């Protein structure tokens, strides 16, 4: 019979049920809806008499006295020496972001032209209230005025207006979640680094899977990845829906007279629905190792949505699984082209994609091309050993079930798999064992880092089973 301790540990560690993303969203929506409904009949609460509540017990009185002493010491230290700069903490950025009302996000293309520009107004509750997006690269724009969402299709000279509840555009989904993720999982990569000649702290933001540069004075991000950020008040009329002259209006709000649906829009909507179905089937087929079905469905998905980068990537993965490496390379290259054209990628690597294409090149014996692709992945791969979230896109690329919450790798799994990838493409083996002690794994990680700093060469063993 197992020991009592093991029984307790089994329950503590392994008896765990987690809501999938869909279930989590559905339950949260109902919960928030209940709060909203109840609020419509509830007067705002008055400020509590905090002092009276706190001072009820003797222990609380002592605690308050101690807190007063500590506060006095902290304040006096602050007054004595204001010249010593305090160390930066991510918490400061999260707090600064929580006080922001407007976000202005700009991504430039290779020649300096604006590729994507967004304005967001954040309400007191932390949720987006107004939004504007101009994406000349996509020939597409959006204005959300708080009640309606207008989608501008410039090439068709048309504006499609939706009720805000039916159609909403967002920058990163839930802003609050992104900020909380920064608080809990963000890492300071380098204090006093520089961003375009300006002093800035470099921070890793897992939710956005990107490096972020923080202004040391305001503690606010100057840039996230390739997107520049500022916080000024937008020009008047930014969030006002205006119909340009000569544009047709298609009003899809409830109760409106939408008129006949133009052929181009009907075809687009039908193709999008078909593509979406095919995408879902493709991801599950790929996860099950049914590469032929996956390829077939992803072909339909990219036909319907030619800029859907993940459909192209997993189409490449399906052909890789079918050992059609030349076709896989073409599909992975397409992802890099989309990223470069529309994702603000420039010539920066898209590590998970370069890695996959590098392996496909290696299978074809194209050593130079393989090394060129794989070497650009090394910094992110080695960084994953210390900051597991840096490798999350590799995991996502490898297992589409993550998209549906059907699979969620642990940090230890992410690190262990990244070490396997490093072993494969470098021929080195410094070990890392999820079952080993923290000290043993620390030695393995340090050895990998040392190797990266002093050697860092790709040595793809062509005969290896990739």
């Amino acid at each position, binding site marked *: 019979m197992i020991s009592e301790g093991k*029984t*307790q540990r089994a329950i503590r560690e392994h008896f765990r049920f987690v809501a999938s993303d869909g279930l989590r969203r559905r339950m949260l929506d109902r919960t928030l809806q209940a*709060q909203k409904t109840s609020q419509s009949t509830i007067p705002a609460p008055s400020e509590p008499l905090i002092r009276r509540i706190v001072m009820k017990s003797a222990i609380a009185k002592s605690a308050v006295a101690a807190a007063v002493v500590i506060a006095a010491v902290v304040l006096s230290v602050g007054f004595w020496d204001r010249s010593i700069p305090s160390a930066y903490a991510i918490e400061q950025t999260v707090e600064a972001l929580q006080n922001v009302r407007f976000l202005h996000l700009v991504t430039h293309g290779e020649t300096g032209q604006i590729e994507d520009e967004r304005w967001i107004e954040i309400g007191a509750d932390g949720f987006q209230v107004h939004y504007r997006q101009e994406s000349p690269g996509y020939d597409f724009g959006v204005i959300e005025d708080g009640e309606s969402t207008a989608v501008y299709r410039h090439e068709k000279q048309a504006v499609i207006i939706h009720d805000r509840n039916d159609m909403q555009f967002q920058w990163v989904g839930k802003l609050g979640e992104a900020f909380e993720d920064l608080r809990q999982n963000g890492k300071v990569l380098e204090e006093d680094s520089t961003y375009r000649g300006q002093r800035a702290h470099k921070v890793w933001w897992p939710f956005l899977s990107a490096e972020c540069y923080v202004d040391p004075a305001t503690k606010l991000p100057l840039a996230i990845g390739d997107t520049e950020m500022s916080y000024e008040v937008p020009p008047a009329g930014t969030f006002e829906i205006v119909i340009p002259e000569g544009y047709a209006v298609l009003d899809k709000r409830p109760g409106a007279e939408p008129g006949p649906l133009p052929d181009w829009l009907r075809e687009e909507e039908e193709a999008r629905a078909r593509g979406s179905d095919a995408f879902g089937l493709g991801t599950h087929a790929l996860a099950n190792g049914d590469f032929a079905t996956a390829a077939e469905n992803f072909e339909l998905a990219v036909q319907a949505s030619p800029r859907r980068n993940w459909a192209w990537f997993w189409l490449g993965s399906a052909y890789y699984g079918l050992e059609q490496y030349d076709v896989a390379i073409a599909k992975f290259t397409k992802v890099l082209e989309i990223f470069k054209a529309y994702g603000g990628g420039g010539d920066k690597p898209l590590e998970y994609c370069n890695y996959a294409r590098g392996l496909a090149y290696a299978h074809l014996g194209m050593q130079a091309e393989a090394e060129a692709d794989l070497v650009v992945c090394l910094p992110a791969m080695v960084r994953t050993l210390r900051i597991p979230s840096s490798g999350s896109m590799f995991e996502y690329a490898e297992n589409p079930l993550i998209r549906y919450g059907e699979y969620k790798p642990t940090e230890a799994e992410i690190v262990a798999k990244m070490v396997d990838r490093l072993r494969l493409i470098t021929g080195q083996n410094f070990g890392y064992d999820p079952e080993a002690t923290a000290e043993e794994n620390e030695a393995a990680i340090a050895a990998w880092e040392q190797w990266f700093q002093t050697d860092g060469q790709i040595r793809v063993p062509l005969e290896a089973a990739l």
Partner: protein
Amino acid sequence: MLEDEKLKWQFKCGSPQALARIYEKYVDTLLTLAMGLLNNTAEAEDVVQDVFVSFAKSANGFTLRGNLKAYLSTAVVNRVRDRIRRQRHRPGTREAKAPAASEARGPEEQLVFSEYAGRLSEALDQLPREQRETIVLRLKANMKFKDIARLQGTSVNTALGRYRYGLQKLRSSINGEVEYDI
């Protein structure tokens, strides 16, 4: 804990962000707790949904000074007891127990758990209700025996006894499962 204090105040002020954070922070713990008490995914989801909806509506009169996690855990226990009581009075309504995820919804809307967790759930389900309650409240909600005893309307010694006897039975029923691939 300090975060909870801030969240409680923000929630009382009507902040949906605070409610969403409380939800995110505790939903999985409460689902696990409900599964430990019911061994039925659909019922566990319903119970936890009811607890959060009721909690969301309670902002106006909300005056909790204690531990938020213990408060929500107690709410789950009370809902589960109500449910069991109602089922007792409706012959033939107790569903066939199965920790397997409900099939009515797609995989994107289900509870996610390992096969081993499913087996542990089955093992817990073999225990008398009071012992099961004591074990999951102690090990999954980290509640003190003093609080468990108060919730069960019994003495601390009785709660400790239920915990010990429950663990002994569990030890024998999950014996051999420890090598199970999880």
